[in-house]
């Protein structure tokens, strides 16, 4: 199943760390459940941010609301990365070759690029916006892209097992 996988991923799969995750009765399921719980938190925080950027929750102060939601999103994302690394390690060689997993990582990278573009090109303007003032087009676009990208990431994540 891991024939042809890059050596680094085969080595990871064969490491003591990965073996311990596979051998434990509860570690793998715990990482699985944790991944979903952090996904739930991330989706909630992300939903608030993207809805605000798209023009919803217009009566709120964008800088404050976005900063608060961002703190939750960062914690949730860190939790997803940690639990995801555990799940990945257990089957690293296999997953590295999985086309849906590759698509998922590409989409996560795209989500990161979207965040970076927003930070540099839209955030300074959004930070100064008073409640009730329409969002600039660049901010709305970033919000829409974020929503689409991260929903696609979630869909890919669930689809890995079927490819």
């Amino acid at each position: 199943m891991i024939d042809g996988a890059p050596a680094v991923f085969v080595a990871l799969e064969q490491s003591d760390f990965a073996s311990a995750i596979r051998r434990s009765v509860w570690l793998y399921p715990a990482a699985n459940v944790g991944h979903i719980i952090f996904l739930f938190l991330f989706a909630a925080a992300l939903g608030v941010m993207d809805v605000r950027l798209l023009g919803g929750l217009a009566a709120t102060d964008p800088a404050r609301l976005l900063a608060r939601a961002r703190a939750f999103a960062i914690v949730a994302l860190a939790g997803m990365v940690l639990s995801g690394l555990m799940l990945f390690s257990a089957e690293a060689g296999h997953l590295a070759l999985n086309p849906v997993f590759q698509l998922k990582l590409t989409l996560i990278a795209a989500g990161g690029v979207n965040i970076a573009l927003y930070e540099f090109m839209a955030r300074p303007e959004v930070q100064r916006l008073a409640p009730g003032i329409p969002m600039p087009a660049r901010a709305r676009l970033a919000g829409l892209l974020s929503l689409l990208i991260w929903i696609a990431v979630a869909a890919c994540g669930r689809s890995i097992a079927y490819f």
Partner: protein
Amino acid sequence: MLRIVSVLAALVSIVGAAIAHHGWGSYDAAKPVTIVGPILTSKFENPHATITVRGSDKVWTVTLAPTSRMVSRGATEKVVAVGQNISAYGYPSTVEKDEMRAERITVDGKTFEMR
């Protein structure tokens, strides 16, 4: 407000779908097979325990269940250890050659459901 609720509902429904576990989609339930023979290798590991079995025609890789489920049903690591004679009823993979997913296994006259 309605817009926010509908967006959040869409997100929640995705999370809900994600809770459902690994499927049987890549196994052909229309062509069930029973493999009888000795266990050659055994990995009692997550996400699924897997064994190889020397069947009458060839060596099969048999995918079992998550280890917690196996243990709770009495199909412990010893039950599926190397050298045990096993009968595995299940469905051949449509993706992996010579792999099947067991619906149930019988060892020493005891049958264990894997689903």
